[in-house]
């Protein structure tokens, strides 16, 4: 099989081209010695089958960032038939260094001048024939977004592959790269007369929009307004979709699974339906929200607004060891932590990503809000309840700030923040859908095993031994609850609530259901009454504080692990949040009691 690698700088439409070339059949490939996920796909070009790899976007083959090291490592270890270099035509004056570097390495290459539509608009003129002659490699203008020139490019690729040149593997890459001086000389010689640039960027639209969107006073309110709107869209559309999906799964359970499994013993039936099937349902419930989230993320990122948000929030976030993009993700976490953590992929510096992922789980997500709504309604007067909820939001911010401040030294962000602010663009519907679909697929593949195992394990704990009522004091979870009760008693959390926290480990969505099972009441008025009789508001607030701060859910842990590729990191996040939750509840409960409440 032929091997092709796609190379290019960030913001050149490299991924758009890759998606167009491969359909959405791309999957994650593993290469020895390379820790970063690379997307790859098999593509038929003429009668040749080719494996196409999308390399991370890099600025310079000599660069020191993690991505640049990955690309060097890849080129040294993998024999290639062809390198496709994607350039943004409007920035050809500086991006031409990539083909120059690739030529120096002796790799067979094709240059694709992308965004020809934008280049025309900005008045950039390129004589691709002359450029091809000087570079010694084919140079083809395309528009990956609209498909212009795409057929001609494919034909050229196919023709080149059919010539069956031997594969090339780069040896001694570091020594062969050009130094700055040579590069500057070559760059001038190549461009002279072949490329005509306007004196300066004349994108009136971008200049005008930036005047508003990056305005010193208006910029931030507009940013928060936009985030609020997106948040509303995701949950206004996502919640009904989630409900429909949930109803569908329930219907299938009631009408197919239960009748089908009725001859089996009740333990096995319970295990399969309430353990395994519900486990799959828990994962599936996240899919609509993740899809919508990435649809919105595609708009924010591809339009160029994500880089602008980094500009707006950077002053504040720099002091916390983060940058503006971390802030956007933490805000998104207030809907659901899972897509927010997946969203940190836009950051390329590992330290920055890790710190952001450590902060996001403290965002008060919609599942936790459900628990708090129930508890505050049960325990507080109608006029106090909203203030209680608001205080929990404030504490959620405080926990995130504290975490960033404490851990910023442990996750240093070496990558300097020099972000390109690309001209505003609007992504096509297809671009957005493909992106969202790929992310949903990725989430499903990575997290289902972990979550299902977790759900099944907790179900077993709640149902073993088999001869006692579910989640009662005699079950394993009840016993664990009793055993760790000495730890929770100083927080004012009784054995029943301790077991509920155990349920909450899977997902905060099932805390209320768990309480209903434990108290043997329906989730409606009875349960609220039963809890209100048993505990006072100080205990209730302590319980909510713990719920706010400890591990959000198994799905979050699953993505933390899969995204960081480190069990240690996932455990750090779990350990830190449990510790913080315990400490905060302890301090609150004991001081409230000392003060006489």
């Amino acid at each position, binding site marked *: 099989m032929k091997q092709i690698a796609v190379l290019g700088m960030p913001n050149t439409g490299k991924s758009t081209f890759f998606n167009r070339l491969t359909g959405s059949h791309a999957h994650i490939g593993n290469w020895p010695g390379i820790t970063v996920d690379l997307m790859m796909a098999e593509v038929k070009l003429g009668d040749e089958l080719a494996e196409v790899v999308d390399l991370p976007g890099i600025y*310079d083959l000599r660069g020191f960032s993690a991505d640049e090291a990955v690309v060097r490592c890849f080129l040294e270890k993998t024999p290639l038939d062809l390198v496709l270099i994607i350039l943004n035509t409007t920035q050809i004056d*500086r991006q031409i*260094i990539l083909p120059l570097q690739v030529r120096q390495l002796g790799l067979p290459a094709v240059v694709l001048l992308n965004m020809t539509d934008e280049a025309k608009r900005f008045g950039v003129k390129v004589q691709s024939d002359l450029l091809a002659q000087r570079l010694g490699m084919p140079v083809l203008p395309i528009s990956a977004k609209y498909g212009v020139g795409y057929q001609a490019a494919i034909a050229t690729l196919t023709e080149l592959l059919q010539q069956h040149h031997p594969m090339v593997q780069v040896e001694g890459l570091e020594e062969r790269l050009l130094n700055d001086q040579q590069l500057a000389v070559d760059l001038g010689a190549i461009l002279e007369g072949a490329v005509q640039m306007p004196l*300066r960027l004349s994108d009136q639209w971008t200049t005008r929009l930036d005047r508003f969107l*990056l305005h*010193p006073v208006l910029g931030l309110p507009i940013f928060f307004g936009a985030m609020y709107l997106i948040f509303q869209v995701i949950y206004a559309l996502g919640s009904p979709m989630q409900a429909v999906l949930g109803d569908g799964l329930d219907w299938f359970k009631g009408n197919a699974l239960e009748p089908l499994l009725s001859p089996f013993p009740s333990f096995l039936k319970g295990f399969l339906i309430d353990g395994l099937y519900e486990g799959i349902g828990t994962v599936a419930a996240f899919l609509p929200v993740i899809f919508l989230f990435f649809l919105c993320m595609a708009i924010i990122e591809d339009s160029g607004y994500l880089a602008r948000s980094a*500009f707006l929030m950077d002053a504040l976030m720099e002091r916390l060891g983060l940058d503006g993009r971390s802030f956007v993700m933490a805000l998104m976490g207030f809907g659901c932590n899972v897509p927010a953590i997946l969203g940190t992929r836009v950051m390329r510096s590992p330290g920055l990503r890790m710190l952001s992922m450590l902060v996001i789980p403290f965002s008060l997500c919609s599942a936790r809000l459900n628990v708090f709504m129930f508890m505050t309604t049960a325990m507080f007067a109608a006029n106090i309840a909203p203030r209680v909820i608001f205080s929990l939001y404030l504490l959620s911010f405080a926990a995130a700030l504290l975490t960033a401040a404490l851990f910023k030294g442990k996750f240093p962000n070496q990558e*300097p923040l*020099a972000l390109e602010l*690309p001209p505003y663009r609007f992504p096509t519907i297809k671009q957005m859908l493909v992106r969202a679909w790929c992310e949903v697929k990725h989430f499903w593949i990575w997290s289902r095993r972990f979550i299902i195992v977790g759900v099944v394990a907790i179900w077993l704990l709640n149902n073993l031994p088999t001869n006692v009522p579910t989640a009662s004091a005699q079950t394993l979870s009840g016993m664990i609850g009793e055993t760790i009760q000495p730890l929770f008693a100083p927080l004012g959390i009784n054995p029943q609530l301790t077991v509920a926290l155990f349920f909450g480990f899977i997902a905060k969505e099932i805390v209320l259901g768990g309480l209903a099972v434990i108290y043997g009441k329906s989730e409606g008025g009875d349960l609220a009454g039963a809890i209100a009789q048993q505990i006072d508001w100080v205990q209730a607030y302590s319980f909510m504080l713990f719920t706010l701060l400890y591990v959000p859910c198994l799905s979050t842990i699953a993505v933390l692990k899969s995204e960081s590729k480190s069990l240690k990191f996932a455990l750090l996040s779990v350990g830190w949040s449990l510790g913080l939750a315990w400490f905060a509840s302890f301090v609150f409960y004991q001081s409230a009691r000392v003060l006489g409440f």
Partner: protein
Amino acid sequence: MAPIHLADLKPGQTATILVLHIDASLQHRFCALGLRCGQEIHLLRQGWMKGPLHVRVGMTEVMLRRCDAHRIYVTAVGEAA
């Protein structure tokens, strides 16, 4: 005459980059983004609360942090027409 940093420019001013006193890693990145010696640089705006700078070099607009801008020396304002 005392050297001028990029960070000393006011929004709307243009200057030419003289020297970049930065380590090799940042040098490569800036160079790839078009921030090279001899290039004309235009300061578009500064971020709120001593935030980052928004500059334009050639066809590219870039944001960079103030601490890094302090290490980029430029010609006196107006010398670059």
